[in-house]
């Protein structure tokens, strides 16, 4: 990138936008839209210029506090770059969806942009201290967005969300301080290199005794809360349901990916042997996440809780893929690992896009229904609002994993990779696909189909502005369903680079 510090720029843009939005009053949404758009353009520029060999490029590195091994160290590869693009898209969608914020719009959009900055920062940081700042930075705006603009039970939901993820963060902090004590390094690349040579475990053992396994557990727990992995997920349904829908879009589209990203960028490279030795219990938890997440969704009556649990289920496939590939493999096994990891990364992007779109549609339904979102209260909406139902139907079928739409590709590759590596967990997990189908078709049955509930006889359909805003999103779902190589082309070299450095 000719020396232009684009990764710094991409983080500073939303922060600057937030500062402006704060004082922009009723123009705040416009400012936020513009900022999010610039963020998207910059993230696409990053995406276009990633190194072709899948390594980390656009590195910016400057000493910060050398005595503490704290560095300003940024970089992006296929994984980070894709997450940048996803965060930018989801933020743009979220800002666009939030056109009914009447109370303190300045603060609202400033917080949204700060959250975006947190996402951007944590997807590019390569030094623990630096990364941790952004990891926490994204948490605070999310907390206030739920707390101040949420639904009736927002207080409890926000608290639970905060305390839960804070506990995860504390675990991460403690573990990395321990690593620092042992190695005097906070650099992810350096730590991963030490781990791959086996030196890391030796150093930790020398300084702190046999705690490597506990450190791995702590780091995994920190990320597992964020993803989430059952049973560390109980904050999620309440937070997703009580947050205003545009904020839920950010939570599910962006923040949940921070956890999976953290596993791939931080936990697996540094703790690969420990994860490999815990593989079986982790796989059991992942399968439970996939299956029980879907099943819990089937029991929900609140649209937002249905899709909150459905998100748990979808991210469960990512966890399944990651844990399944944590095993020494060569030859055919390596091909399966590559397939699974490609699938995981595609699933991250596709779930982010699709889930954010679904919550967007829910926001539109809520706007029209005066906040109602119990699936039994609707019925026959196809009659008054065919376009809304048709477009939302596409997003729902993408979530269901229909081939030809984006959701299928990631799931197919994950199963392709997982089956040879752990056929039992793959076999149990396909149940999740079936249950998800029931969940989604039940939503369609109760909300869109059936006799029209007279209450909604004049339910307005999408107006032109909304249709126009949705066209690129739906178009992207179809495009990525038909030509996934658009993403895989860039992701696959990174997958190979990552796998080459992981020593299980």
């Amino acid at each position: 990138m000719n020396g232009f510090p684009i990764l710094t720029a991409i983080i500073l843009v939303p922060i600057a936008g937030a500062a402006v939005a704060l004082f922009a009053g009723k123009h705040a949404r416009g400012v936020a839209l513009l900022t999010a758009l610039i963020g998207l353009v910059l993230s696409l520029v990053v995406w276009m210029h990633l190194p072709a060999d899948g390594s980390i490029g656009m590195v910016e590195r400057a000493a910060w506090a050398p005595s503490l091994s704290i560095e300003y160290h940024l970089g992006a590869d296929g994984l980070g770059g894709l997450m940048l693009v996803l965060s930018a898209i989801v933020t743009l969608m979220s800002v666009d969806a939030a056109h009914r914020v009447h109370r303190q719009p300045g603060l609202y959009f400033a917080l949204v942009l700060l959250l975006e900055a947190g996402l951007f920062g944590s997807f590019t940081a390569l030094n623990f201290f630096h990364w941790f700042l952004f990891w926490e930075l994204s948490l605070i705006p999310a907390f206030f967005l739920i707390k101040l603009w949420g639904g009736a039970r927002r207080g409890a939901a926000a608290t639970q969300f905060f305390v839960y993820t804070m506990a995860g963060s504390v675990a991460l902090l403690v573990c990395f301080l321990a690593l620092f004590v042992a190695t005097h390094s906070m650099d992810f690349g350096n730590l991963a290199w030490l781990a791959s040579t086996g030196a890391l475990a030796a150093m930790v053992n020398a300084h702190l005794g046999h705690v490597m396994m506990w450190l791995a557990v702590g780091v995994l727990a920190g990320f597992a809360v964020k993803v989430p992995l059952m049973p560390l997920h109980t904050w999620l349904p309440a937070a997703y349901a009580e947050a205003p829908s545009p904020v839920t879009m950010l939570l599910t589209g962006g923040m949940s990916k921070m956890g999976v990203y953290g596993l791939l960028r931080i936990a697996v490279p540094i703790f690969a042997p420990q994860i490999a030795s815990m593989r079986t219990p982790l796989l059991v938890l992942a399968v439970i996440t996939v299956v029980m997440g879907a099943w819990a969704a089937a029991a929900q009556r609140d649209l937002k809780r249905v899709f909150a649990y459905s998100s748990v289920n979808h991210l469960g496939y990512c966890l399944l893929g990651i844990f399944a590939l944590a095993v020494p493999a060569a030859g055919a096994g390596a091909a399966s690992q590559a397939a699974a990891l490609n699938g995981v990364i595609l699933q991250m992007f596709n779930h982010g896009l699709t889930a954010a779109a679904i919550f967007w549609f829910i926001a539109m339904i809520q706007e029209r229904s005066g906040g109602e979102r119990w699936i039994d209260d609707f019925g026959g909406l196809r009659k008054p609002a065919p376009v809304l139902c048709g477009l939302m139907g596409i997003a729902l079928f993408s979530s269901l994993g229909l081939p030809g739409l984006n959701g299928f590709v990631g799931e197919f590759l994950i199963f392709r990779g997982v089956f040879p590596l752990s056929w039992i967990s793959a076999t149990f997990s396909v149940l999740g696909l079936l249950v998800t189908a029931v969940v989604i078709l039940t939503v369609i049955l109760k909300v869109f189909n059936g006799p029209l509930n007279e209450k909604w006889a004049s339910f307005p359909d999408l107006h032109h502005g909304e249709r126009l805003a949705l066209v690129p999103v739906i178009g992207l779902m179809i495009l990525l369903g038909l030509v996934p190589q658009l993403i895989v082309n860039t992701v696959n070299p990174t997958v190979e680079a990552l796998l080459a450095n992981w020593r299980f």
Partner: protein
Amino acid sequence: MQDEMLLIAPQAASAIAQWLWLIPVAPIVASGIAALLKQPRRQLASSLAIGSLSLSLFLSLIAFGHIVAAWAANAPTREVVNFTWIEVGSQSVDLGWVLDPLSAIMLVMVSFVGLLIFIYSIGYMEHDENFTRFFCFLSLFAGAMLGVVIANSLLLLFMCWEIVGLTSYLLIGFWYHKPSAAAAARKAFVTTRVGDIFFLLGMVWLFAQTGTLLFYNDGEGSLESGALANLLAHPAALGLTAAGAIGLLIFCGAVGKSGQLPLHVWLPDAMEGPTPVSALIHAATMVAAGVYLIARVYPLMQAGAVFHGLAPGSTPALAVVTWVGAITAIFAALIAIAQDDIKRILAYSTVSQLGYMMAGLGMGGVAVGMFHLITHAFFKALLFLGAGSVIHGTHEEQDIRRMGGLKADMPVTFATYTIGMLALCGFPLLFSGFWSKDGILEAAKHWSVTRTPFYLLVFGALLTAFYMTRQVAYVFFGYWRGRRQAHESPRVMTRPLMILAFFSILLGFIGTPAWPWFQKFLSSPAAGAEMRGFHEPGLLLLMTTSSIVVLAGIVLGAWIYGWRSPSPDEPDVLEQSARPIWRVLRGKFFVDEFYGATVIAFFWWWGRVADWLDRRIWGGAVAAVTWMFAAWARLNRFLDTNWVDGAFDKGCDELSSGGGLLSRVQTGRVQTYLRLLALGVILLAVILLWSSRA
């Protein structure tokens, strides 16, 4: 994108094969355009659909002619075009299409029957407000179905297969405001997906084992000898080889799609859709896709037998196919006897006939099963469209007990329907169903494992003749028992009936023992079925037997139902004589009730368990931990206020109120968090400083 789509054509494919993709893509494009049309553009929507499918038919005929010419000239009859879809790791996921006798025949059948049904739909759906949407879905269906047919990759086939399932879902629930239609749509999708998750597992297993999902790829494909040898060398569980296990997993998908036991329950309910949909999707094409799938992966299914020189059809996988097919055939035929809805009778008949096809595939090979598939497609489409014409003409009446005497009011419908009915019964010599069903019986008689399926299928033939005669007697004979007088349907509906009736007779003659053109055309060396001519000992005896059975069924039906015209409220003759049996048949063996009480009840119960676990157990654990923290905090506060001075608190207060903007949130709790955060930062700094000094 151009780079990725680079075509890999090992053996130079002909231009016709290169452009084969146009056949499915044309209707899909038409569907995409129709999706954007406003409802009033009815003419344009139907013209687009019919125009695009005509193009597909035209191209299919050219492709068919091309393959026939190649076959006649003893040239290679299989051309494939493959391309890389995605590259993961060092492996590529390839897709492609194949032109061979199997796909060529299917292409012509699907596009031809589809086109007739499209035309018929103009008349049938004339008054529907969602006419445009109907043709949009119908075109998407046709495109995806043609995609299933030409796929040279299990993955591409699966993708199109699922989209076909989607369109089936959309069209069953086309009248979405009817709760029964909406429920039937969901049931269809979910039930077929039960099969599809096993199909998916079979597919990823095949991919992992052979490294490719292409069927044919110049010796590298998963159905070619190298891959098959590899699969046979790997044992799976239960004494199966990997080939057998994968074959059975794939067969699960076919069981769902083709309405075989135990996943047949969705197909009769699917009759909630408009009748042209029932004819096209749930009789002629989509439900036959399962049969087609097994025909396509036949080398996999019979790999063990071929490699060990055993009789074809004796592998465990094919034995399962046979048994499932034979049991389904008789099971559904029994149910069909006791139904009163004109479309449901045909639906059970379809389930039963699909069972015949599966059994034919299992025992006799590709050609035997496929021949019945093709003839069935024509006469069953004819019967469904005839039923639609009856429903249309009797003002939406579907109960055969409230019809009667329609042979006078609807002569064209009557004549064509009778032809379809005779073809389905397998009436001797003149009708196509006779020849194709005879092929299956013939194979069953020679099956090396056991003769039981043969007896089942012969009995099924008797039942088929009986229930179809009962239906025709109720609908067309006797006197009119309905309310408003019936009328004949418009030409746009009757013309397709005539064409289909013509083919229901004619098609039989391309596969008779005297001139088994169809069988020879489809039989590659791998298919394994040997041809038997009229000189085959026992063949005439078999044909005579089956003719007698069919005639017996018809005579029995006519004797019981033909000379009576019972009033709609009077119990059925069989009900009067054998009440308990009738109840069971009428209740469809209570399979739906059984599933409702077991699988479905478990499903929702388990969902509530998952929810309960979440709220009470996991949530409860968190609540307990929170409570402990709160208790600790209270203790702490007590100590704080009593013993420690308030300096630290004060500092934190300043911190939070200094936030200015955030000071609105003076709930007290937030201060706690900020305090926690501050504590964390201080802790971090202390540890960092300490450790850096060390």
